[in-house]
């Protein structure tokens, strides 16, 4: 038999060969810029004085930067509310779709997914109009009901309003992820449950939800990462409420403003690296807690 070392070696090389083109693109798109960003974060270029190596000075500045931590707390608060709400809605919708008790399920499945097709800038444009407190939909409804409705983009409501835009955009997407996971649940489990006389709610609780655990964890991780990187929606809505949606509203907006308005590429790179590390820690925590809760 010609099995043995040569064939195993071939498989190894084949595997690497399949992944090589992706790795090239990955290097160009992510690794090289990331490396350059880390390199930049160790220097400081001044308008007067040129480029100097400063070691970890940018990092110690970032770690004690009150504006960075304020924006970080803000997105943390945002995600603690928005992610569970959005995933909860997506879960309920996916369960409804899978229940075989919903007429016209394909219509709901595609219809609720549609907002995902809309670019974030267009979504911000549409919701921005509806939030307009003087002439927008909120005002129209308010005057119709004879009640003064609060400005959705004012200080106390702004996080909820942005949360609404993000939820609108991504609930359908998460719903589909859950629905796809539900569709591959082995049929034998359902048959066994039927034989045992389980109620529909019981099936949901003891079969569907546990089967969804990995999908929920993955969706949670991606949603958390997305929330920590919140940028496009608040940035697009800024002109409607410039003193609430300030340039330092989220960490990403802060880094963006430093880079482009302030030309402080070095400090901005350091902040981005810090944010990347924080994100990875939080994502790992979410994954670990997911594993433990259902153990």
């Amino acid at each position: 038999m010609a099995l043995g070392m040569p064939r195993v070696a071939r498989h190894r090389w084949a595997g690497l060969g399949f992944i090589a083109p992706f790795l090239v693109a990955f290097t160009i798109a992510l690794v090289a810029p990331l490396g350059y960003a880390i390199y930049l974060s160790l220097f400081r270029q001044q308008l007067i004085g040129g480029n100097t190596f400063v070691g970890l000075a940018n990092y110690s500045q970032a770690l004690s930067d009150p504006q960075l931590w304020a924006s970080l707390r803000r997105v943390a608060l945002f995600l603690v509310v928005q992610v569970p709400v959005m995933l909860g809605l997506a879960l309920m919708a996916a369960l409804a779709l899978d229940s075989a008790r919903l007429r016209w399920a394909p219509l709901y499945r595609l219809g609720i997914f549609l907002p995902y097709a809309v670019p974030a800038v267009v979504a911000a444009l549409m919701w921005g109009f509806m939030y307009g407190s003087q002439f927008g939909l909120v005002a129209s409804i308010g005057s119709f009901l004879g009640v003064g409705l609060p400005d959705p983009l004012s200080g106390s409501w702004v996080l909820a309003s942005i949360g609404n835009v993000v939820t609108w955009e991504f609930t359908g997407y998460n719903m589909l992820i859950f629905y796809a996971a539900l569709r591959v649940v082995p049929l034998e489990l359902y048959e066994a449950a039927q034989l045992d006389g389980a109620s529909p709610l019981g099936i949901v609780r003891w079969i569907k939800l546990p089967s969804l655990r990995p999908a929920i964890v993955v969706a949670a991780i991606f949603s958390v990462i997305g929330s920590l990187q919140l940028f496009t929606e608040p940035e697009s809505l800024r002109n409607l409420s410039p003193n609430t949606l300030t340039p330092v509203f989220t960490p990403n907006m802060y880094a963006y403003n430093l880079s482009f308005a302030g030309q402080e590429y070095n400090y901005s790179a350091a902040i981005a690296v810090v944010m990347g590390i924080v994100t990875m820690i939080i994502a790992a925590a979410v994954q670990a807690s997911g594993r433990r809760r259902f153990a």
Partner: protein
Amino acid sequence: MSNPSTRRIPRIWRTAAIATAGLALAAATAACSSGGTSGAGSGSGSAAGGPTTIAQALQTPTTLTFWAWAPQSKDIVAAFEKQYPKVKVNLVNAGTATTEYTKLQNAVKAGSGVPDVAQIEYYALPQFALAGSLADLSSLGLGGVQSQVAAAVWDSVDISGKLVGLPQDTGPMALFYNKTIFDKYHLTVPATWDQFVADAKKLHSANPKEYLTNDAGDPGFVTSMIWAAGGHPYQVSGTKNVTINLQDSGSSKWASLWGPLISGGLVSPIASWSTQWYQGLANGDIASLVTGAWMPVNLETGVPAGKGDWRVAPMPQWTTGQPATAENGGSADSVLAASKNQLAAAGFVQFMDSGPGATISANAGDFPSFNSIINSPSYLSQAPDYFGGQQINKVLAQASQTVLPGWSYLPFQVYANSIFPNTVGQAYTKASTLSQALQTWATQSATYGTQQGFSVSS
């Protein structure tokens, strides 16, 4: 024995290698072929034996790249190319204001993709000038500008003794008001700021939905108002020394006036340039604007329903008999130091701003920079229907003559303006008083300046 597996190893690697090589080859090809659009243009600008005067340069085949967002730029380019057929100008709208400045700064930093000419607003000029990114137009042959423009306009383009751009349009401030609303509520056209405050109170108490003007916080507006109050919060000496004092007499005077308007809810919280702002101007909820002389064309296109309702009056004064105004907005055109066609570029700028192009801009609604156009009888006698037949340019020309000289912006004004919302902006959300907020702005601007190597004092 020939082992089939050893033959297969190279194949996998070969495929991957070919793919990678193909990618790199394609990238290199694209780079070569696309050099034209992103580069600063081809031509014989700096070669030995090339043109030594602007006139010669304009007769040499050249391509220039021009970044601008002003809508009439297209017409100016067309007129220029007609007169100088050997010079081709690529007009690129790289974005409005800060969007363009970001791209310009990025391009300068990267050392590639820098245009030959760029439209730059006055407040951003010092930033580019002090970084050495702009060419000195007087050394390229453009002179005699100082006597042709108002003193304040000259101040804006003469930085550290270099002429860093030619002024395209200016924005001396005036009061644009809705006469129909003023008549309806019996408001007098305010000649002083005290009258302005009185009008604001009167209008808002008569109708809580309406306001004399709007202000949601705009750094250009704040700096211009401090300017008109005689303030000099920013001073620059040499290349390194900067003074930032937003508590000086002019700043405090303005803050004492405007702070109560904000905290008393007497100005509309609608942000300028938003869709709600246009709506408010159209239906009378915003009764007047204190803004630059470029506003008429924006009213005409953005608020068509207001035709016939609006008029122009001089900006309210601090002291009767001592008219003082400020510039708000307006831009210049500059030649980039990285350009390889500086002479031809300077020739283009000259055509655009002090030649036939200036007339094109004035006809498009820009408020001119050169006195010869401002004071020409045909310009002064214009009586647009939108303003009920009022000869508005007479008021605006008067305003341009009373702009206080001696103002400067920071060498990092673009950044300072970008942090306005989280500093001064907090006064608008009632999180702090205007005076405190100005101080915060000054402090954070100073911190940035120090970090950038300037020596900043207050």
